[in-house]
């Protein structure tokens, strides 16, 4: 356990190094947020929806703020797979799955906090209807945070599955691209899940992708009442367990059949 904790800590520190790139990233992400909010304002002017525009804006900003949590990948690991250097990691006296799980968890957590917190601060300052609103209630905020933690567990598990698959195909771009698209679409980043057709809602909110950011955001904005929290946590924890088990199984199979790239 201590080994994994120190991996986690080291990775956190590493992520803190790239502060320069961070500012450019924040500005860019903010710009995307503003464009999206502007688009929804125009759409709402044509046909208003049940969900108020303030909530849509909050949804967009939270998605943008935690975007890094979703898309951050362990570039080192990709390179190691490609060059064959992953063989060194096989020699470590730790479990490979959890070794990489803690690394990616640290990367996603720190990356999104560093970008997300300043972005949310700015988003709060924007005029009403354009910026973020305060949480629906204090308990909504805390249940959202708790759900975000479980969402992070799911996200890291999904990331490790993608890695396991690209270890077999050796070509991270194809499969990773497709899985990434599924994630961006069904997590609500491309279009808030609340704006998907009503008939789809029952299914898409059950998918693992909705557990990542959609569920926490809906708790935050009061779309889901706090009384639903136990149910949501059970759903998230269930998906996290399934995805982690699947990931461990895939990694174990890879480990047995591993052919190291020479070079």
């Amino acid at each position: 356990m201590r080994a994994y904790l120190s991996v986690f800590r080291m990775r956190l520190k590493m992520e803190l190094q790239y502060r320069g790139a961070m500012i450019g990233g924040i500005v860019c992400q903010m710009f995307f947020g503003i464009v999206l909010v502007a688009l929804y304002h125009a759409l709402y002017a044509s046909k208003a929806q049940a969900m108020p525009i303030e909530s849509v804006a909050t949804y967009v900003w939270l998605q943008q703020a935690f975007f890094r949590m979703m898309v951050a990948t362990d570039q080192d690991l990709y390179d190691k797979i490609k060059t064959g250097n992953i063989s060194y990691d096989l020699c470590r006296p730790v479990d490979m799955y959890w070794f990489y799980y803690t690394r990616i968890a640290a990367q996603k957590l720190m990356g999104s906090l560093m970008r997300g917190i300043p972005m949310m601060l700015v988003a709060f300052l924007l005029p009403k209807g354009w910026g973020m609103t305060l949480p629906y209630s204090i308990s909504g905020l805390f249940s959202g945070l708790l759900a975000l933690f479980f969402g992070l567990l799911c996200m890291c598990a999904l990331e490790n599955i993608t890695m396991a698959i690209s270890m077999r195909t050796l070509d991270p771009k194809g499969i990773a691209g497709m899985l990434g698209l599924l994630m961006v679409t069904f997590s609500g980043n491309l279009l808030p899940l609340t704006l998907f057709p009503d008939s789809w809602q029952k299914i898409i909110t059950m998918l693992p992708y909705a557990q990542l950011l959609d569920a926490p955001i809906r708790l935050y904005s009061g779309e889901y009442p706090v009384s639903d929290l136990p149910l949501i946590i059970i759903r998230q924890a269930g998906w996290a367990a399934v995805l982690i088990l699947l990931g461990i199984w895939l990694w174990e199979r890879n480990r047995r059949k591993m052919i190291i790239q020479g070079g």
Partner: protein
Amino acid sequence: MNTLHLYIRSMGMLLRSQLQYTSSFIMQTLAQLVMEGGEMLAVILVIDRFESLKHWTGGNLFFFFGLMSVSFYITEFFGRGVTGNFPSMVRSGQLDTLLLRPRGILTQVLCSGVDPRRITCIAVGVTALVMGSNMSRVSWNILKVLALAESIVMSCMLILGLFLIEGIFCIHSVKSVELVNALTYGGRSACQYPIDIYPRPLKILFTVLAPFALTMHVPAAYIMDKPLYGWPTWTVFVTPLSGALVFAILVMLFNRGVKFYRSTGS
């Protein structure tokens, strides 16, 4: 003419070399299809929920989306050297070898990359264009075809020009600058919807600084018989030229920038 010949030769060579890895190529091309399909799905869902956007119908929106996809991905297909490879060429010092050869830097950079996987993205864009044109009941005539062709060519030049900004920054700071993405990829996201729905600052940004509105929205609106801001017909053929203008200015700046290039030494 010699330059063009060189470019076509390089493209042929690069294409053949990329097609050597058939299965990987097919996988990645499919992945591109799914990705761009996802973008289109978002537009479909938006139209499904909101039906129209101000005075633009669903069909109009497909047309705008299609025009953006086609232009953007043609640029990425043929201009891969600028849109993708350049930052790593600077970082790895690969650019040094280009400086030694008796050809323009930009020509060589353009000749260095092609991205045939984008073909499926272009196909999605064409589908959206056809769908949009059918749904908006466009009555095509020779003028409209010309306007569309000019719009696509000029938009490609504009997009290539905007990607050059990243190249220029890159020469000065070595690291690729994420900020520039706001203009290129941000422009793609924003301007796949017509410009007149946005608030004034965004309108100014995408009309004056990065004139997507002039190269795409003015001609597209004319083709669908809903002239943007009610501008007269001659503007349809004049405003897209701003794409070439932006490209020319940035090529000039790029060539000046290269003079300041210092190799990373690796």
